[in-house]
């Protein structure tokens, strides 16, 4: 891969955006690789956490946001625990995930956004999550109808899924909270 090491690339707008959103200073990363060494999904992805950080340092927006590593992440925090520089890599990944929303990169982000939206819709409407509502909503909206629903009979047999949604008392306040945040973040 050809990389651009000009001053412009090293101080890209993309990098600044990621640093601001994540609150991390990416100059701290000296590419030691410890984050990738501990990462449980590293064997299954094309771009390791170490490389992903490098891409951001070098302003490689397209490659970074399109990499499978942005979504194929368990959020387990092992990378954070191992980083000798104390970089919060999970927050860097959160920042990249947020950026995919506006840009609509295809890889993995559609399923993930569908899942997040189904989850948060449920919380917004009821104040709590019902797993059956979530699984149903997610699988239908993402076209993955049969992937996990086939596990549902097991769960239903043992009454594992709360079937009726439980609504909190102050749901009106909660909806104002969601709305206020949308207004603040939309600005």
């Amino acid at each position: 891969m050809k990389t651009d090491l000009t001053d412009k690339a090293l101080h890209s707008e993309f990098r600044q955006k990621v640093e601001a959103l994540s609150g991390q200073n990416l100059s701290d990363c000296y590419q030691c690789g410890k984050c990738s060494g501990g990462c449980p999904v590293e064997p299954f992805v094309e771009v390791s956490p170490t490389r992903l950080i490098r891409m951001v340092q070098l302003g490689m927006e397209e490659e970074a946001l399109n990499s499978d590593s942005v979504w194929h992440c368990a959020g387990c925090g092992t990378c954070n625990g191992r980083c000798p520089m104390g970089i919060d890599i999970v927050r860097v990944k959160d920042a990249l995930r947020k950026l995919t929303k506006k840009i609509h990169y295809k890889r993995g982000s559609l399923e993930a956004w569908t899942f997040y939206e189904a989850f948060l819709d449920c919380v917004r409407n009821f104040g709590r999550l019902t797993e059956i509502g979530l699984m149903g909503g997610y699988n239908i909206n993402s076209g993955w109808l049969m992937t996990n629903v086939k596990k549902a009979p097991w769960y239903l047999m043992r009454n594992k899924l709360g079937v009726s949604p439980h609504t909190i008392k102050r749901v009106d306040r909660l909806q104002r909270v969601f709305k206020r945040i949308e207004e603040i973040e939309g600005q």
Partner: protein
Amino acid sequence: MKFAYYPGCSSEGSGAEYARASEAVLEALGVELEEIDDWVCCGATPAHATSHLLSIALPAISCASAEKQSLDILTCCACCHSRLKQVNQEVRDDPALRAKISEIIEEDYRGSLNILHVTEVLAREVGLEAIKARVRTPLKGLKVACYYGCLMSRMPEALMSDKSEYPMLLDNLMDAVGAEPLDWPYKTECCGAALTLTQTKTVIRLSADVLQMAKQNGADMLVVACPLCQANLDIYQAEAEKLKGERLSIPVVYFVQLMGLAMDLDPKRLCLDRLIVDPMPILAQKGFVHGAVYL
């Protein structure tokens, strides 16, 4: 001893047995719980992956409610615990954020409480000696692999106290009720639960590794303290067996279920029958239960 109780969404669904068993054990050990009034979902990964403000506001609503009750918070779910704790800390340390969040949630929130996981309350507040004294049927000869997963072992305070790679809280609790906790290497490996719906294949591979390692180390059961780990490790065993080409079939039980058993609590309250891989055969074989009670 009294706490504000944050049950979390899974307590009303797939993790109900965890909540019920925890409540039973805490009650038997004299810990009082007062449910947080009108608590809301902590937002979990979907909130913190999409909106920093939302990921703080949701836990803040429940914590502000607990502040009115003037009680420290106890929660059983490792995921909720990690979210609540992080938010509490962030708000406490940042006055500007405190003001902003209080305005958003229409309530004053100071971040003044301690947020405790049920394992901490049992091991440290109640204490191992008090637990030992309450045991009626020690789980002698039951080999357990304590599995902490990622959320319990990656908390900032755990990282600082050097407990993140080889924690002992669950092991100590299991030891206190007479079981035999194993020294095994996958205590803190991640099972991939956050990817259950989006990357099922990865999840099966990660879970299969954990299950196989527990088996190879001679575990009768895996013992967990997180509803996401439990569901994940329990539900994919058929797929994991296919992947590994060997029989695994290893029960994945909540630590409180075993504690309750050792304390001779009403088996109905421990909900051992809600697990998918049935722990009864091993428990009966070791003489800790009499099958008929559960059938």
